[in-house]
């Protein structure tokens, strides 16, 4: 028999909360993908130009 005191303190998410979580996860995914793209861009530019800067120093 399950001990009720061991049952985790939980509540149901409302449809609004679920929708908000879904939207948040989407944004997090997009942010992660964006970060990967930015790292890729900097890597390509560095490989192509050396430092990504030009002109007299």
């Amino acid at each position, binding site marked *: 028999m399950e001990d009720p005191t061991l049952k985790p303190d939980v509540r149901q998410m409302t449809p609004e909360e*679920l929708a908000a979580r879904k939207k*948040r996860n989407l944004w997090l995914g997009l942010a992660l993908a964006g970060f990967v793209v930015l*790292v890729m861009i*900097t890597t390509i530019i560095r490989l192509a130009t050396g430092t*990504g*800067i030009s*002109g007299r120093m």
Partner: protein
Amino acid sequence: MTDLTAQSQQKRPATAADYVNLMKPRIMMLVVFTAVAGLAAASGMTGVTMHPAMAAIAVLAVALGSGAAGAINMWYDADIDAVMSRTSTRPIPSGAVPKDEALAMGLIMSGVSVMLMWLASNWLAAGLLAFSIFYYGVIYTMWLKRATPQNIVIGGGAGAFPPVIGWAAVTGNTPLDAWILFAIIFFWTPPHFWALSLLAHKEYAKVSVPMLPVTHGAKATRLQILIYTIVLIPISLSPLATGLGGWIYGITAGVLGVVFLVCALAILRSKAGDDGAPGADMKLARNTFLFSILYLFALFGAVLVEHAAGLYFPVIGG
């Protein structure tokens, strides 16, 4: 339906706007603008240019770093934000974003911003960005703000770093001109913020934050606003001597500097911040606060126009 542990502190589902507000977007705008001006000035003064994509990523890194510092600030200040009416609607006290989530967001964004800055430019710019986040999030927010009436003066250093970071991103060093831009923001911050605190000092008193009007009174604050404005004006004109600022900058800094001084003198003569101060005096403090924002935008806008749009006409040695 999905189960959720009952530890959530959320009172309502967070919207995208809540996460944007967590990053203090108005401060971020000023930070990004001054960083871009520093970047443009560095290119204009040295002839060194960044690849446009690298420059854009460096600016994005500064924006993310600013947002990260804002989120950390809101995480730490959630207790006092909930008490002050001006800040009680912020994402954490309003119950939209849980505190832990704000902290996690701030820390992750800090790491990402510094990493992006390093990838897009160099270790010096990345290090300065990391230090400026630490300065705002830890030195100012966690230590100075609740400890000393000089909180704004010393803490102003955090907001003064962006043009130096922009400059370092381009050249890999920070010459005198970069630090002049730093000094302009550093000495602009006290009169800017104290003008606001004259309006909101009762709120700060309520949460025992030792802002200058709370600890030394409105009269002393009005005098300090004038003193810092007097110090700011020659510093704002110093780019003319080093060649960083040309005619456009000189006229902008000169004219707006005089207006700022007139506002500071009017505040000194007013009763702004006193109990029972006339509405006109409080309006003067508010207008001075708003004007100070315009002042900084205009000064750095002039730097940007001169060095990015090729409208630099030197005052000295031209």
